[in-house]
């Protein structure tokens, strides 16, 4: 059976197909069909010819097989130094083989490659910093995901995730109405405590357009309220778009580049429409990667930049504290041992380490902030990145992967972990559930709301 009902080479483009695939609980039938799925070797060969160019081919060729990337990979370290977890081995035995065989690979090869691409690499890019030849295995794994996706070899949840972006322009089934209702509801809910609170929708030429993660309106609406409260207290002239507010991209994790383009163009269209001075994205790592770092290229923008200045939430918070737009009540600073999770997506891959450190300086009492080791650019992935958190099939591997971050956190003796990234936050939540560390974890927003001084004219 070449093409399955659920597992096939076609992306999900209709609500109906999406619901049908969702109804296949846990992807039972989906994975059964995958065992039979044929590889279209001609298509694979063509894809290689079109997209596997100088950079990737050179990386694959000049790898010295020296193993200097081994210890850099947290998955190698938490799996008892399994040689099959060395980045160079992982990529050479998957993408490297596909290239050497010119796409002539079979079903079992592709299923193994899928396990490698999604359960043995989170695309954290740490190994690339340790390779003398400058070989970035994480980038190649992301490329491999694209090849696998086009052939239908993708974990069930991510096929759904990419479909969500195509159907709803969001990673979850949040429609424009749902989104606007959430905004209204959050304003009503909080106006009593915060008089004058507003979430201005579609305001033209605002100083700030705010974009977020669909999980927030869907599951954590208080996060939307907190963002509004902080902008309100800071006196910002801000807005949210009714369309193009969703910044994340499960399509990026899935390797569905076409859906990535659709999503990011939707956000950029909102920027073009509302013409804000700049855009601020929520506390999410991969959303930032998708719209600010990779997005411009998916959208075909030759300068590699979004249509307006686009910053991460931590950059805005650092600026607001620096300029005094937000002031912290000295009595409410954090007084317990606290550590900080560096999200690979905007720290290693977008250089924002110093902004989060700056924030710590304002909100944590002297002597209470403890760095993890290693940190900043050299941090380890939380253990759940690149879609790993959400894939049921690889849950056991993911739980094993959490151990690197667990040990880092335990070594700091911190009781609170600040994690300004949805994925990292989830991973730490699951870690607590799995390994019972007795820690708490938090985004920045709720902490800030609990410690800012309310300006006099706003009733403070």
């Amino acid at each position: 059976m070449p093409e399955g009902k659920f597992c096939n080479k076609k992306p999900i483009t209709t609500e109906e197909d999406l619901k049908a695939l969702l109804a296949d609980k846990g992807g039972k039938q989906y994975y059964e069909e995958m065992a039979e799925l044929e590889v279209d070797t001609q298509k694979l060969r063509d894809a290689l010819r079109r997209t596997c160019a100088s950079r990737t081919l050179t990386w694959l060729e000049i790898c010295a097989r020296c193993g200097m990337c081994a210890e850099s990979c947290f998955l190698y370290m938490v799996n008892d130094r399994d040689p099959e977890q060395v980045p160079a081995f992982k990529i050479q035995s998957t993408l490297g083989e596909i290239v050497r065989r010119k796409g002539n690979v079979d079903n079992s090869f592709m299923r193994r490659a899928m396990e490698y691409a999604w359960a043995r690499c989170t695309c954290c890019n740490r190994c690339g910093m340790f390779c003398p030849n400058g070989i970035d295995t994480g980038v190649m794994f992301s490329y491999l995901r694209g090849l696998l996706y086009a052939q239908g070899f993708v974990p069930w949840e991510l096929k759904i995730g990419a479909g969500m972006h195509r159907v709803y322009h969001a990673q979850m089934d949040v429609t424009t109405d749902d989104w606007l209702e959430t905004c209204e509801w959050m304003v009503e809910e909080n106006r009593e405590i915060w008089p004058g609170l507003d979430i201005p929708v579609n305001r033209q030429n605002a100083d700030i357009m705010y974009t977020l993660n669909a999980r927030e309106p869907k599951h954590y609406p208080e996060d939307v309220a907190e963002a509004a409260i902080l902008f309100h207290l800071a006196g910002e002239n801000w807005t949210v778009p009714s369309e193009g507010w969703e910044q994340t991209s499960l399509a990026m994790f899935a390797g569905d580049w076409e859906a990535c383009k659709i999503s990011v163009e939707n956000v950029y269209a909102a920027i073009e429409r509302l013409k804000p001075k700049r855009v601020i994205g929520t506390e999410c790592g991969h959303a930032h990667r998708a719209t600010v770092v990779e997005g411009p290229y998916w959208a075909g923008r030759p300068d590699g930049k979004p249509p307006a200045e686009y910053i991460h939430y931590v950059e805005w918070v650092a600026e607001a504290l620096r300029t005094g737009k937000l002031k912290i009540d000295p009595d409410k600073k954090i007084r317990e041992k606290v550590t900080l999770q560096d999200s690979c997506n905007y720290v290693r891959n977008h250089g924002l380490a110093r902004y989060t450190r700056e924030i710590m300086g304002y909100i944590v009492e002297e002597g209470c902030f403890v760095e993890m080791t290693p940190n900043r650019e050299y941090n380890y992935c939380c253990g759940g990145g690149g879609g790993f958190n959400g894939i049921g099939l690889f849950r056991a591997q993911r739980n094993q992967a959490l151990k690197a971050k667990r040990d880092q956190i335990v070594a700091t003796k911190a009781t609170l972990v600040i994690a300004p990234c949805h994925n990292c936050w989830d991973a730490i939540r699951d870690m607590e559930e799995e390994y019972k560390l007795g820690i708490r974890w938090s985004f920045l927003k709720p902490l800030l709301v609990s410690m800012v001084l309310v300006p006099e004219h706003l009733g403070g």
Partner: protein
Amino acid sequence: MKQLLAFLAGPGLIAALLIFSCGLTFRLVRYFRGLDWRLDRVAYRPQMSAGMAGGLHSIFRWLLPYGTHGWRSYPLLTLCFFLFHAGLVLLPLFLPGHTVVLEQTVGFSPPSLPQFAGDALTALSLFGGFFLLLRRIALPETRLLGTFGDYALSALVLLVLASGLLARMQATNYDLWLLLHIAAGELTLILAPFTKLSHMVLFFAARWQLGADYAVKRGGHRRGPCFPW
């Protein structure tokens, strides 16, 4: 044998050098021409000056022994790597034995190292290379990674070093060692553009690319003046 030697030291050498230099130049040009801002998702041209600074910095730091986190995390490997490569880069150009041959065949040559420096570099290089080979065999991860080609190329390069040393020591069978040395040396030159030995130029290309990638796209000035390699 004398005839063969004369051939290898004359036209053979010229041919090998031509293949070597044209081949590697071609690889380098093809690499950079093949960089594609859409596929790589790096705006090379519009942000060339940032890219150039980041790229050159990335090359420079990695040429310093213990200059990066990567080198520092494998101290012994790093020592041996730099000993091995110091010889491989300096000896072919500056060894007295080589400058004489180059003078004769090509017509000019770089200045030559004192003989004792050549000998010392050779010994250290052999030591470093030998250790790298041992390490490759001893560690589970490199054993799994290594291909036949990796061993063959390492062995070939070690053979060039060892046979050169034996010839220089005027060991018995001087001619044989010299012949072996020259043949293996020229084979190395000829193979360079076609095997992963091409890393002797593509190292600079790939290092430049990743440095530029971080400077143009993955943070650049937000991070501070340069990437903390």
